[in-house]
C-alpha cells in the first residue's frame, strides 16, 4: 500500500470530483468548499473546547491533589457537556442600568475574534483555512480585538468591579501585546515569511533540531510569558482576580453569554498554544511527515496539547502577580529584552555565516540574553526587597 496516498488532500480531491460529477463547477464549488471549511473549522474549535476544559480541570486537580470532575461519563469526560447544557438553559440576567447594545455585543465579539484566528493555523502541510501572506499580522490584528471585547463587557455592565476589570484589561493586554508581537517577529525575521505554513516548513531542517525553540529559546521564553498574559491566565489573571474583583469584566454575565466568554477564554488559550507550536515548535513537522503528510495533524495536535499542558501547569502552580509587578515585568524586562534580541538577531543573520553555524550563533546569543536577563532581574529583585526591608527596620547604631 502506498502510504503517501493517505493525505487529507486526497479527501479534498475526491470531494471536488463528487461535486463536479453532480454538475457543480468551480465558482459555486469554491464557495461551497469555503462554507464547508469554515463550518468544519468552527466545529473543530468548539469540540476542542469541550475537551480542553476537561483537560485543564483534570490537570489542575492532579497538581493540587484533588480528583477533579469524575461523575458525569467515564473519567468525568461529559462534565463539560453537562455544564454547557446547564448554561444553555439558565436564565439570562441583564442589569437594568447596563448599556444594552454593547453588553450583548461583547460576548459575541469575544468568540468572534478567537474563531477568526483559527483561519490561519496550519494543522498539517497545506491543511490551513487560508494561507495568507500576512498570516502573523492577521493573528496580531484579530488578537487585539480580545481586549476590546473585554473592555466593552467591563464598561457596559455598569458595575464597579467589572469596570476595574475592564481597566486592567486595557493595561495588561495592551502592554503584553508588545513583547508578543516582537517575539512573533523574530521567527518571521529568520524564516523570511509571514505565512504560517511557510513558518512551519522553515523549521524542517536537521531532523527536529531546526525548530526555533532550540535555536531561539529566549524568543520562545518571551512568547510564552506574553502568551500567559494575553491568554488571561495565572500568574497574569489580574483582570478576573476572584479574590479582588469577584470575576472581573464578566461579573454581570450569566447563562449563555457567560458561556461565550468561557469558551473564548479556553479557545484563546488553545489558539495561542497553536501559534506557539507553529512559530517555535515546528508546527506539523515530525518524523516521516514528508512521506505520510497525514501524520502532520497528529504531530500538530500532540505539540499543541503539550504546550496547553504547560500553560495549565503554570496556571495551577503560580500565585497571582500584583498589578505593578505585572506592568514592570512587561515594560522593564520583556520589552527591552525583546528589542535587544531583535537587533542582535538581525546583526547575527547579516554576518552571513554558513548554515549550521548561524543557528549555533543564534543559540549562543539567545542563551547569553536569557541568562544575562535573568541575572539582571534577580539583582533588581534583590535590590527591591532589600530597599523595602531597610525602609521598615530601624537603623541600628554601629558598634
Amino acid at each position, binding site marked *: 500500500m502506498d502510504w503517501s496516498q493517505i493525505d487529507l488532500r486526497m479527501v479534498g480531491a475526491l470531494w471536488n470530483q463528487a461535486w463536479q460529477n453532480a454538475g457543480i463547477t468551480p465558482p459555486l464549488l469554491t464557495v461551497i468548499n469555503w462554507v464547508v471549511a469554515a463550518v468544519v473549522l468552527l466545529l473543530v474549535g468548539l469540540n476542542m473546547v469541550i475537551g480542553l476544559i476537561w483537560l485543564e480541570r483534570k490537570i489542575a486537580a492532579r497538581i493540587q491533589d484533588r480528583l477533579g470532575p469524575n461523575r458525569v461519563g467515564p473519567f468525568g469526560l461529559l462534565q463539560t457537556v453537562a455544564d454547557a447544557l446547564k448554561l444553555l438553559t439558565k436564565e439570562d440576567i441583564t442589569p437594568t442600568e447596563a448599556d444594552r447594545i454593547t453588553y450583548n455585543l461583547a460576548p459575541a465579539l469575544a*468568540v468572534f475574534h478567537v474563531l477568526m484566528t483559527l483561519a490561519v493555523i496550519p494543522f498539517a502541510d497545506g491543511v490551513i483555512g*487560508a494561507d495568507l501572506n500576512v498570516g502573523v499580522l492577521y493573528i496580531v490584528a484579530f488578537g487585539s480585538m480580545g481586549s476590546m471585547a473585554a473592555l466593552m463587557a467591563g464598561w457596559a455592565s455598569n458595575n464597579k468591579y467589572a469596570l476595574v476589570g475592564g*481597566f486592567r484589561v486595557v493595561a495588561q493586554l495592551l502592554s503584553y501585546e508588545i513583547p508578543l508581537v516582537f517575539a512573533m517577529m523574530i521567527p518571521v525575521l529568520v524564516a523570511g515569511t509571514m505565512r504560517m505554513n511557510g513558518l512551519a516548513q522553515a523549521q524542517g531542517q536537521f531532523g527536529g533540531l531546526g525548530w526555533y525553540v532550540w535555536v531561539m529559546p529566549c524568543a520562545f521564553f518571551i512568547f510564552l510569558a506574553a502568551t500567559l498574559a494575553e491568554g488571561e491566565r495565572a500568574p497574569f489573571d489580574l483582570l478576573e482576580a476572584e479574590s479582588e474583583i469577584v470575576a472581573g469584566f464578566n461579573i454581570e454575565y450569566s447563562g449563555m453569554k457567560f458561556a*461565550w466568554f468561557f469558551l473564548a477564554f479556553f479557545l484563546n488559550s488553545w489558539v495561542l498554544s497553536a501559534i506557539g507550536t507553529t512559530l517555535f515548535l515546528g508546527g506539523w513537522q515530525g518524523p516521516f511527515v514528508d512521506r505520510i503528510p497525514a501524520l502532520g495533524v497528529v504531530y500538530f495536535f500532540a505539540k499543541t496539547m503539550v504546550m496547553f499542558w504547560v500553560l495549565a501547569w503554570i496556571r495551577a502552580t503560580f500565585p497571582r502577580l500584583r498589578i*505593578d509587578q505585572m506592568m514592570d515585568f512587561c515594560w522593564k524586562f520583556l520589552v527591552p529584552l525583546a528589542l535587544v534580541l531583535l537587533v542582535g538577531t538581525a546583526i547575527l543573520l547579516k554576518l552571513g555565516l554558513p548554515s549550521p553555524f548561524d543557528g549555533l550563533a543564534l543559540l549562543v546569543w539567545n542563551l547569553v540574553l536569557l541568562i544575562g536577563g535573568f541575572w539582571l532581574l534577580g539583582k533588581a529583585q534583590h535590590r527591591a526587597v532589600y530597599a523595602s526591608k531597610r525602609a521598615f527596620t530601624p537603623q541600628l547604631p554601629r558598634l
Partner: protein
Amino acid sequence: MLEQYGFIGILAIIAFAFPFIGLAVAWLLRPKRPNPLKNSIYECGVETIGETWVQFRAQYYLFALIFVIFDIEAIFLFPFAVAFNQLTLFAVFEAILFVLILAVGLIYVWRKGALEWQ
C-alpha cells in the same frame, strides 16, 4: 491570492453569526422571570454608590500612548522582517537605527517615571 480573503469573509460571517445563534437557542430554552432585585447590579449585596462610568485615570492614557508608539513600530518592522534576506547591510542598519531611536524613547519614559504604577 486575493480569493483567500473570500474564505476569510465567509468565516467572518459564520463566526459572527454563530454566537448569536447560540444566544437565540438559549432565548428559546431559558426561563424569563426578571424582577427589579434580580436585575440590579451585583456588587456583593451592597447597593452601588455613585456614578460607575467615571473618567479613566491618566495613567492608563500614558500606557496607551506608549503602546501605540511601539505597536506602530512593530507594524513598520514586519515588512522589514519579511524582506530581511534581500536587504543590504545598509538597510538593516537603518532598521536597527529605527529600533534604537524607539529604545531611547523607552529609556526616556522609564527615567521620567511614567512606567511606575501608582
